[in-house]
């Protein structure tokens, strides 16, 4: 502080402390959640058609929608009570314990960083595909995506999520425009669903194909839980987080249904399951240059919005680990002017760049999905413990999800099905990742935890849990 005064710099520091700024509203929460996810409609979900056919892609659209509705409801309840940066990490710390929290934070960082990498690769590949110029590689576009968005995140959360709101809205509206441009109420004019999806080819691999399709069905909604990372920066967490998250989930269910309907009505499942650009291809197949260009731009914007939200979320999870000394406290620095976790943003920047240059899209996507599903499995256990330790009425909740424990049970069962699906497609990666988390847990338990100030990490002013 003194140094700042001496150098004549002005900053907004509350009291003696530099903390994250509370400047966000429900629209920003929506932009963060939907922004991260919407790219999944532009690429990713369609690989589920390759696993099980077009009908399997629709079945998983709804069933995985149920999984994520459970995620959104459970997350809204817990995070409206534990309103801290780190989201599920802070929840795990207070409800389950430090080792679980450490793992959850790593799930978050891996899921978002790998998703950011996938987004950047997608954006680079899309531009290269559009250009069709020999010798043009995606590297420069990947670098620009990651660095420019890191800079935006470095400069402040309000502008970051304002930008996300605008570009996510444009990408979303492009899906709506495509949907209404192909006369969805009339089959045969443009859409040919009854010819492309027939009883003979609807489920080419039977019901095991539907199970296998879960792996990529996750892409319809992957990342909606990222809204909770904004908990410490929203003006009214108890209201804004449930509202923004649930509105985001409704938005995505509509987008997913429209996307499947248009794409499955324009492309045979054999092609739909392997293309990297289902919506852009759908735009091309309508024969309208306007729609083709609109969907090309929307694909880029969706990838940008997703990478932008991922940088925001991964940095906050990493920052929270530093603040509790689960990692060196150096990472918990907040920029005195921009009020962002600037060291965490900068630390994760070269890691994302390195992965984006060396990893391939499928590997990056799989690591992201795996970390995401591990996190959802934790959430189903977390809510059971939360309700048991702090029953309704014992602490103030901004939102109480209905039908407990049904959503938790549904979530847990669907996570198990998804793990099986991932094992079918990427068994070695699943095992490698499990071994990684096991080893890093040993490191945390036997080495790192001794640096943690144990009393300081539990910050919520709650009564003692029941039974303690």
């Amino acid at each position, binding site marked *: 502080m003194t140094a700042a005064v001496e150098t004549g710099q002005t900053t907004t520091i509350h009291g003696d402390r530099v903390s994250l700024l509370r400047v966000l509203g429900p629209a920003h929460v929506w932009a963060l959640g939907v922004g991260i996810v919407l790219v999944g409609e532009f690429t990713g979900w369609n690989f589920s058609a390759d696993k099980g056919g077009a009908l399997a892609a629709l079945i998983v659209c709804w069933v995985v929608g149920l999984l994520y509705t459970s995620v959104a409801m459970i997350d809204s309840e817990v995070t409206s009570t534990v309103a*801290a940066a780190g989201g599920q990490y802070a929840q795990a710390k207070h409800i389950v314990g430090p080792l679980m929290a450490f793992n959850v934070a790593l799930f978050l960082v891996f899921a978002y960083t790998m998703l950011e990498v996938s987004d950047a690769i997608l954006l680079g590949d899309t531009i290269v595909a559009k250009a069709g110029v020999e010798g043009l590689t995606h590297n420069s576009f990947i670098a620009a995506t990651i660095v420019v968005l890191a800079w935006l995140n470095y400069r402040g959360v309000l502008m970051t999520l304002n930008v996300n709101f605008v570009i996510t809205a444009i990408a979303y509206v492009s899906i709506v425009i495509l949907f209404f441009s192909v006369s969805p109420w009339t089959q045969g004019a443009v859409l040919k669903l009854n010819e492309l999806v027939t009883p003979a080819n609807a489920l080419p691999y039977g019901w095991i194909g539907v199970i296998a399709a879960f792996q990529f069905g996750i892409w319809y909604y992957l990342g909606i839980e990222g809204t909770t990372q904004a908990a410490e920066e929203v003006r009214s967490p108890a209201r804004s987080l449930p509202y923004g998250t649930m509105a985001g989930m409704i938005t995505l269910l509509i987008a997913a249904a429209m996307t499947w309907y248009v794409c499955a009505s324009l492309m045979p499942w054999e092609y739909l399951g392997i293309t990297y650009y289902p919506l852009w291809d759908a735009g091309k197949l309508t024969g309208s240059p306007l729609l083709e260009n609109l969907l090309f731009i929307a694909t880029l914007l969706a990838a940008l919005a997703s990478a932008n939200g991922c940088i925001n979320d991964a940095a906050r999870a990493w920052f929270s680990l530093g603040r509790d000394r689960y990692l060196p406290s150096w990472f918990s620095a907040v920029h005195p002017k921009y009020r962002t976790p600037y060291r965490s943003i*900068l630390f994760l920047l070269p890691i994302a760049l390195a992965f984006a240059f060396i990893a391939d899209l499928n590997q990056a996507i799989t690591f992201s999905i795996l970390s995401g599903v591990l996190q959802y499995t934790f959430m189903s256990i977390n809510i059971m413990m939360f309700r048991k330790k702090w029953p309704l009425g*014992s602490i103030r909740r901004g939102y109480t999800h209905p039908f407990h424990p049904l959503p938790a049970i549904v979530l847990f069962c669907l996570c198990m099905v998804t793990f099986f699906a991932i094992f079918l497609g990427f068994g070695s990666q699943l095992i490698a990742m499990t071994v990684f988390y096991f080893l890093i847990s040993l490191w945390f338990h036997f080495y790192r935890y001794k640096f943690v100030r144990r009393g300081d990490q539990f910050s919520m002013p709650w009564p003692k849990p029941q039974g303690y």
Partner: protein
Amino acid sequence: MWMGLSYVCWAISAALAAWMLYDWFKVDTTYSEETLTSSREGELEAVSEKHRI
């Protein structure tokens, strides 16, 4: 045109990365480590939430 855009992307990336590194250095040398890492979780909640139902 696309090759030109590619070079522009490299240039923008390098410029912004350099700016962030400069700003990082400036902030770290201007403020004390105590001030920069003074953020605490749940501070505002601790003040506003009494949890009296």
